[in-house]
């Protein structure tokens, strides 16, 4: 006769409430694991999806995600000429914050190298990839920008032509994809007043310097648009991405490493930079918090099981009196602990599956993580029942008589 099940049957309300409480606690432990996994996934998502073998960034930086990187547009042609490189393309990445319907809207803007890259690789759930060089965006669903919506960024309005899902930057912001030129414009476009001030500052610098004395034309053009000043560089890129022939990544990196203005990373190197840099502390913090929650869950479960055992001490004494061996009493407590753990885990999974998709950041429940948590729950249940078992085994059958 299974005493644990019969006790549960008799005290079903108490059991359900206990499982609900334990389940919610385990859901938080599960959620922490999911958030941890989500951070890693978000951090490396773009690196993994963008399909580049080598990332060429500003010399000495760990760009373009871990820190700011600026490289000249001509770099794309230089990289393309490296033996082993199949193709190269521009890449721009930056984050902006605007206001939409009275709420802050953070967008991670990624520039695609038009026309080679139109975003055909993006996981579209609606619409299409980019079809023209300007004024189109493919936005992630998390940004809340519906298909066809027009949004003012800088001086221009951009229309959402495609919607992706799960495309988030390492900070958890949804990504909007535009052409490289548009991404640069969104990042660097200045207001009219700012342009006027910049031109005036240029004129002042021109008057003070020696160069305009030998090149008077430069002084004349100081107040003109930037594009008409040949000495001024054109807008910078964040990185140049290269697709490399299989097995030749190291060779390409070797070539790039000899250039004094840039640094090259493989995709694996970029992943490491992100995981060791950007999100390392967050990962560590969430990992520690998860461990702490697991310990707390164990303590709470132990207290619950201990209380449940205290409630049954008289019955346990009675069982001993009528000759029940210790294994019967041990099974009563242990089976109940495992039952609470198992049902709690089920509750956590059901609640979490419903609740986590509603969280602002991604919470990813992977099968290995769930299996690991299930094993932890079994361990917690056994560990937590030890206190109750210890108490139960110390009960004298005499207590049933008194």
């Amino acid at each position, binding site marked *: 006769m299974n*005493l644990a099940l019969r006790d549960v049957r008799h005290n079903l309300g108490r059991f359900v409430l206990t499982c609900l409480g334990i389940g919610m606690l385990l859901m938080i432990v599960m959620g922490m694991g999911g958030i941890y996994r989500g951070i890693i996934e978000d951090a490396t998502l773009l690196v993994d999806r963008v399909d580049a073998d080598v990332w060429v960034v500003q010399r000495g930086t760990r760009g373009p995600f871990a820190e700011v990187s600026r490289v000249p547009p001509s770099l794309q042609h230089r990289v393309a000429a490296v033996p082993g490189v199949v193709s190269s393309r521009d890449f721009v990445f930056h984050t902006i914050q605007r206001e939409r319907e009275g709420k802050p809207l953070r967008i991670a803007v990624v520039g695609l190298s038009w026309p080679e890259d139109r975003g055909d690789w993006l996981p579209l759930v609606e619409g299409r990839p980019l079809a023209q060089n300007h004024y189109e965006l493919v936005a992630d669903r998390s940004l809340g920008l519906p298909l066809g919506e027009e949004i003012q960024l800088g001086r221009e309005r951009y229309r959402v032509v495609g919607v992706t899902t799960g495309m988030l930057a390492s900070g958890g912001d949804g990504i909007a994809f535009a052409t490289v030129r548009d991404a640069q414009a969104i990042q660097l476009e200045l207001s009219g007043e700012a342009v006027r001030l910049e031109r005036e500052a240029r004129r002042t610098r021109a008057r003070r310097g020696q160069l305009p004395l030998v090149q008077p034309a430069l002084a004349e053009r100081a107040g003109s648009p930037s594009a008409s000043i040949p000495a001024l560089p054109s807008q910078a890129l964040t990185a140049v991405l290269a697709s490399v022939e299989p097995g030749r990544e190291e060779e390409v990196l070797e070539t790039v490493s000899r250039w004094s203005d840039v640094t090259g990373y493989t995709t694996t190197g970029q992943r490491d930079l992100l995981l060791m840099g950007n999100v390392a502390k967050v990962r560590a913090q969430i990992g520690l918090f998860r461990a702490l929650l697991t310990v707390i869950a164990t303590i709470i479960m132990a207290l619950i099981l201990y209380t449940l055992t205290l409630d049954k001490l008289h019955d346990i004494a*009675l069982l001993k009196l009528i000759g029940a*061996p210790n294994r019967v009493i041990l099974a009563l407590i242990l089976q109940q602990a495992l039952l609470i753990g198992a049902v709690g885990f089920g509750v956590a999974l059901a609640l979490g599956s419903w609740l986590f998709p509603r969280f602002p950041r991604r919470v990813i429940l992977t099968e290995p993580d769930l299996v690991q948590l299930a094993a932890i729950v079994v361990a917690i249940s056994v560990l937590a029942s030890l206190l109750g078992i210890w108490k139960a085994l110390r009960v004298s059958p*005499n207590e049933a*008589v008194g």
Partner: protein
Amino acid sequence: MTATPPTPALETRQLTKVYGEGNTRVVAMQDVTVRVERGEVVALLGPSGSGKSTFLTAVGLINPPTSGSVWIGGELVQEGPRALTDLRAFRRRHMGFVFQKSNLIPFLKARENVQIALELGSLGSREARKRALQLLDDLGVGERSEHYPTELSGGQQQRVAVARAIANQPELILADEPTAALDSNRGRQVMELFREIARQRGSAAIVVTHDHRALDVFDRIYEMEDGVIREGQDDLHTRAKPDPPPAT
């Protein structure tokens, strides 16, 4: 050639129980020697604190004596504080207990309370269930077998407890004021039940009671006072009278 006399169901020799030491030393039971034959039903009387429960827990192998020995079914099982066998297993096979309060396990139904005792006695689940139902039927509570203890009256609970106590056909039934929570008629029925079981199954029953109205049911009476036991009066059948029928 002489026939070997049957072994008694219970025999104690100079059982003594002392609590505390020095100034706090209390002798709860002193040199108690009794012999209860199979088929015999014995009452144990005495005021509160006289040592009845100490005696009952000592022969029930729950609370070891300080000195003296306990023999059950001819087997020496306790010698002073030293147990000579696995007491829990011995209780399971050879003893049954009934208390003042029925002491049923609250999360088990009436049938399951009996069935658990049978299963602990190594009976298979199906057979134990069948036997439990039979026992409850025999004791007149068969129709309440699928009810929890809280759904039974005091008398019904006590009958279920008796069924559990006799389930494994023990050699010794120990009952501590089993009728205290019952009215006199119900109390008498329970006492008669013990006698019937003892007669039928060849077991012995020791019943601690304050209820003098049903003393005629017992074969012998022991009285305890200040930890000392002595065999009681032989006029118990004339002293104890059943309650008169209620006036109409």
